[in-house]
């Protein structure tokens, strides 16, 4: 069937299949993003155990408190993988050749994110299994675990949109890699390590309060240590959805502009 006759779904499927196959062929790119957050979780979960003795800290182990972090770190790595893959297509000229076909820009964008989406799902399941295996209970139960997977995948999808946006704007993988530290800073300047009410330094508390990443982490964390916290979940899903809509919307515009240039 020619591409001009293929439906949007078929177009997305074809590009997504390629993206998924390519992602899984690059084992180095898969293993590092999967292992790094787990190593940090293992170290910090134990090394920051003393933090549970701070008055006002939630009555849970630090490992349970910290389990939300790997989901966020994994999402950041997904963003880089998605961006670098797309940038490589631009650099090698594959993107230009695709742009000459009747393929729709939206289908190309969503298809390119297929690999990132699958990686995000796999990562989320691995982090959850490792967390539970290390003795962390999910306060919201099995249903909460499913919601956690959905939320973390949505977050990763939103960040992947940022990765593709950078790739489309700059057209090279180095730029995507260079932006990665900024993503990481947003994680460290959040309520990643301590609850916001226990952050003593005023400027840090303010930054963490205005940093949307805090609410993404707190949404995931609430399912693990609190149970069903409507406000935390609404904020978590709200910010994750906003991130996905904004990053994909901006990527879509950037895609249109890049295809026009082609």
């Amino acid at each position, binding site marked *: 069937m020619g591409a001009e006759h293929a439906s949007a779904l078929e177009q997305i499927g074809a590009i997504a299949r390629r993206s998924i196959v390519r992602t899984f062929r690059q084992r*180095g790119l898969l293993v590092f993003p999967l292992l790094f957050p787990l190593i940090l979780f293992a170290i910090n979960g*134990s090394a*920051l155990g*003393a933090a549970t*003795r701070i008055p006002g800290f939630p009555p849970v182990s630090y490992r349970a408190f910290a389990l939300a972090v790997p989901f966020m770190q994994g999402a950041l790595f997904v963003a880089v993988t998605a961006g670098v893959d797309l940038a490589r297509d631009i650099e090698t000229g594959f993107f230009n050749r695709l742009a000459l076909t009747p393929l729709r820009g939206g289908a190309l964008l969503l298809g390119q994110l297929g690999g990132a989406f699958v990686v995000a799902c796999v990562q989320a399941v691995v982090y959850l299994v490792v967390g539970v295996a290390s003795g962390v209970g999910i306060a919201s139960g099995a249903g909460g675990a499913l919601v956690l997977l959905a939320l973390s995948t949505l977050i990763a999808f939103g960040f992947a949109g940022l990765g593709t946006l950078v790739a489309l704007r700059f057209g090279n993988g*180095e730029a995507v890699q260079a932006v990665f*530290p900024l993503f990481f800073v947003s994680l460290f300047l959040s309520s990643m390590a301590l609850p916001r009410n226990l*952050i003593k330094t005023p400027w840090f508390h303010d930054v963490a309060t205005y940093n949307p990443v805090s609410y993404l982490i707190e949404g995931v964390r609430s399912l693990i240590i609190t149970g069903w916290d409507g406000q935390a979940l609404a904020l978590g899903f709200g910010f994750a959805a906003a991130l996905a809509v904004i990053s994909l919307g901006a990527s879509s515009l950037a895609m249109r502009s890049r295809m026009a240039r082609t």
Partner: protein
Amino acid sequence: MRRFAFVVRGVAWRSIHNTIVSPSIIVPSIVFPLFFFAAFAGGLSKIAQVPNFDYKPGYTAFQFTFVFLQSAAFGGVFTGFAVARDFDSGFARRLLLSAPARGGIIVGYVIGALLRWGITGSVVTLVALASGMNVPAGPGDLFALLALGVLFNLVAALWAVGLAMFLRTEQAGAVIQMPVFVVLFLAPVYVPLHLLTGWVHSVARLNPATFALEAARGLLAGTPTDIALAFGLLGGSIILWAAFARRGLLSAERAAG
């Protein structure tokens, strides 16, 4: 000897010149330690209220020592990245063919790492002082702290340069960086050793980085502890990783033909 010094000077000059003129190299190596300092000293300062947290100069100074040594280590790691990049671009092969004394290549890169850390370490220290860090240490203690940082930088640089010469590709970045990162974070980063619990405490007790970190904290507090042990371990590590780097150079020489 003159030929050796010529190679050392050329490689070191190129290394530091590339660092200074390339924002993509100098900015991350300055920003990373600062960002860790801000995140740890700012975000985790409440940890100083944990019972039995007994570091007198305060949590900012407690975290400064970690970031100070971390910046020293990453000065070496980033130099390893540069070596790997030189192999990818073909420059290292030309260097191996043209250098009259190849041992000077390692020394040149290591001096480049030290100069690179001279920049980042200074910036980190100035920012910590500007943020109001307490420094009860005397001049002798501060000099010893600086010497500790220099040795830490040398250990990391020899590891990173040696491994980069063995692997000879930029893709080795994670392999160079990861062990350093893990060793650093398996030291008492957030709380003193006696407040660590579980497996991290068991590992931290045996981790050489712990001895360097505890010694650095003692020096900054003006109460030196286990200094000889820390310096001895770092000195031994330098000998070990110098031999490793030398073998890396031999491997690169064989590959270059």
